[in-house]
């Protein structure tokens, strides 16, 4: 069924009782042309593009839990492209653009909302660092500029300059958008399912089967399934899953925390970054303040994280926005990131023929559509698009790393 205003009105009149399920709950067939491990935005997206752009519809997405229940549900929805290295800047610039048509492509409202991001600078060091960053990113086409204290006050009237760390200026980045993260998974699932993709939930991959020619299939909690092409789009446990095919991924698992307040009426439109505190926050469409900061200082698989981080995050926000002092704290959680040594993603073939990976996005929500397009293209054509050549696994042995510092997975 196509979603439309007419449909909505019709079902509204009938009390919304007659909507069909958005996607089929499939049981696995014995064999597929392509299997994708991981039913988050990246995995469902890859399946959708395999079907829609490459005509490969005999595809299954295997998800251990329920779709969109992993890091797709645990991120802070912010989509930005302020990266400093050419390969990353090009990729993330294109990634931001790939969001704009998504609601139309999927016939599903992902609630894209153009907020803009304002970075608060609180020392001369922040300011000179910001100038370097703005100059670098504008070389790659990102619309980024330094703003004066007056303009910052206009954009963020609630900000107050703390005496010990007075605000000296800001950066404005108009292209930053937010999107409803759950809707991304649901929209891809619905659109892929419609094209014939099987979405299999509660199906954990327990082994990857290979012979001398490469991948032959997977062993799962719902039995053995054969395939010659296997894509992996998992977060938090990329190392463990790839190890089933004897592929050693150079990643470490680190919690990245987020937290939200109870919802209040609209009070803040921009995404705010407090540069010196490594902290950012915004108000979601639901009205909650969504807050986050740097990754935990040690690796872990704990989806809770260390308590130092929320404490420091809230202290930082209250220094500059004392108006939020009486906000009620609602929830706090962590998403486990797969982080590479260079903080850059891996979208790559592996040494096992037919086994492809899209992992280590270091906060990979923002790249979902483009990474999925590239992963699908890689699986279909068995060679990387120029946009992802730099994200190959071979960069670790060749030494051509992309030592990006602009991601939240900073070491």
């Amino acid at each position, binding site marked *: 069924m196509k979603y439309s205003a007419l449909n909505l009105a019709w079902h509204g009149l009938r009390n919304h009782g007659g909507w069909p399920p958005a996607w089929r709950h499939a049981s696995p067939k014995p064999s597929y042309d392509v299997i994708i491990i991981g039913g988050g935005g990246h995995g469902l997206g890859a399946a959708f593009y395999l079907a829609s752009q490459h005509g490969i519809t005999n595809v299954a997405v295997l998800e251990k839990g329920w779709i969109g229940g992993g890091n797709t549900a645990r991120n802070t929805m912010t989509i930005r492209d302020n990266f400093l290295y050419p390969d990353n800047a090009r990729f993330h610039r294109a990634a931001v653009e790939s969001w704009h048509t998504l609601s139309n492509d999927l016939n599903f409202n992902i609630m894209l909302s153009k907020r803009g991001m304002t970075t608060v600078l609180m020392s001369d060091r922040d300011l000179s660092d910001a100038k370097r960053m703005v100059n670098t990113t504008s070389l790659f086409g990102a619309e980024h500029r330094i703003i004066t204290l007056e303009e910052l006050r206009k954009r963020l009237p609630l900000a107050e300059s703390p005496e010990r760390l007075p605000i000296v200026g800001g950066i404005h980045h108009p292209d930053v958008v937010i999107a409803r993260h759950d809707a991304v998974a649901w929209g891809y699932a619905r659109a892929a399912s419609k094209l014939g993709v099987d979405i299999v939930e509660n199906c954990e991959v327990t082994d990857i089967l290979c012979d001398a020619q490469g991948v032959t299939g997977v062993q799962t909690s719902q039995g053995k399934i054969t395939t010659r092409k296997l894509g992996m789009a998992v977060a938090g*446990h990329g*190392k*463990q899953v790839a190890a089933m095919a004897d592929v*050693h*991924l*150079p*990643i*470490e*698992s680190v919690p990245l925390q987020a937290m939200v307040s109870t919802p209040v009426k609209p009070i803040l439109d921009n995404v705010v970054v407090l540069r010196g505190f490594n902290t950012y926050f915004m108000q979601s469409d639901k009205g909650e303040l969504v807050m986050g900061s740097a990754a935990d*200082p*040690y*690796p*872990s*698989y*704990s989806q*809770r994280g*260390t*308590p*130092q981080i929320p404490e420091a995050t809230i202290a930082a926000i209250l220094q500059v926005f004392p108006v939020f002092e009486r906000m009620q704290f609602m929830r706090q959680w962590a998403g486990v990131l797969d982080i*590479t*040594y260079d903080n850059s993603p891996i979208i790559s073939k592996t040494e096992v023929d037919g086994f492809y990976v899209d992992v280590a996005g270091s906060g990979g929500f923002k790249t979902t559509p483009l990474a999925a397009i590239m992963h699908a293209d890689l699986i279909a054509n068995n060679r990387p698009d120029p946009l992802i050549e730099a994200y190959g696994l071979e960069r*670790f*042995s060749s030494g051509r790393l992309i030592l990006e510092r602009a991601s939240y997975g900073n070491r």
Partner: protein
Amino acid sequence: MIFIHCPHCGDRNEDEFAYGGDVEHRRPDDPDAMSDAQWCEYIYCVPNTKGWAKEHWWHVRGCSRWILVERNSINNELRRTDEDSDRE
């Protein structure tokens, strides 16, 4: 986690400590004898154990000594070892 037991200082807040890596991730004795692939594996493929592992921790904002701690990476539960690490 919150508190880490330092054999010299007792139970101290975790933010006094810095993580120093898994003890299994040892620098090879003879790097020259290794292939590029093995060296690459050592540099970039840390053990990243899910579950219990023995680790180096540095009491950097305390007595400044390196100690060994056992930690379960699933829930950050700790076991004290009362051992010093061989790092300096």
